[in-house]
């Protein structure tokens, strides 16, 4: 399908190649803080992060509970691991809001852009309508003109 192909090429577009003004402002002109926020959100919200976190938790629990390992720093009930979880959660919340705020800002910008475009599209539609009305009027006049001419001709013949 043609539309599918165009979505694929749109997906491949990266920074500074965006076509839509909202993407240009939002991604291409993002500040350093905004770029880091995007990176943080996409880093935490990825399967890599989840997988690495799971492996680290498994290693932590294994080392601290299995007899074989001699160096133990956080035995049952894993109070330091609890703190690590809490720290992760304490940072995930703000980062979630950070990325949510950014998305809300984009939504706001997109609607503003829609309003701008809709306004001129509305004007164009109304102009098309009035142009066609003018055309109809002109055609009507041509028709009347022809009718009058035929009537005059018919009268002359009669």
């Amino acid at each position, binding site marked *: 399908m043609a539309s599918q192909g165009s979505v694929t090429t749109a997906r491949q577009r990266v920074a500074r190649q965006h076509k839509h*003004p909202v993407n*240009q*402002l*939002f991604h291409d002109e993002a500040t350093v*803080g905004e770029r*880091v926020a995007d990176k943080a959100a996409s880093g935490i919200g990825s399967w890599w992060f989840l997988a690495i976190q799971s492996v680290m938790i498994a290693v932590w629990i294994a080392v601290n509970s299995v007899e074989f390992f001699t160096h133990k720093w*956080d035995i049952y009930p894993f109070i*330091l691991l*609890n*703190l690590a979880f*809490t*720290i992760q*959660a*304490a*940072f995930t*919340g*703000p*980062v*979630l*809001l*950070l*990325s*949510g*705020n950014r*998305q*809300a*800002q984009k*939504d*706001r*910008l997109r*609607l*503003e*852009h*829609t*309003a*701008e*475009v809709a306004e*001129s599209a*509305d*004007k*164009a*539609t*109304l*102009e*098309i*309508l009035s142009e*066609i009305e*003018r*055309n*109809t009027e002109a*055609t*009507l*006049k*041509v*028709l009347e003109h*022809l*009718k009058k*001419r*035929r009537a005059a*001709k018919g009268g002359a013949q009669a």
Partner: protein
Amino acid sequence: MAQPSTQAPVSLGADDKARVVHRLRRVHRAPATDHKHPVNQAHYEDSTFGERLADRAAAVIGSWPFIISQTALMVLWVYVNVWAIFIQHWDPYPFIFLNLVLSFQATYAGPIVLLAGNRQSQKDRITLEHAADESDKGEQHITKILIEIKKNTELTLQILRELEAEGG
């Protein structure tokens, strides 16, 4: 006789695009004022006290100053409770009270995230309703245009018949 149209057609030319981007850039960096889209106006300018508070909370917690201060406070807490000499250690290793404080933060951050998400989904709902209204309006315009063109075609056909009658 109808004069040929001398006005330029209304469509987004290069100048208009530049103007739109300029305005968007201004709105982008100075939020919450002067919105053009009715959904933005309803969402930001006509929001209730509770909604404004939710937006403020989300904006404060979801900001770099908050994240940086939290990090600094955490590092300071751990440093003081491990290495400080002249201050009493109120929460020694493994920092159980720090755990409680951070859990407290996370307990509130979760609901605030949902508060912000709910507000966003409400906005999405209004956006779609507004889009449906707008598309109704657009459809009306198109129907009008179609009727007008049909009328025009009818007249043109009549002219054709007149001309054929004249020629024949």
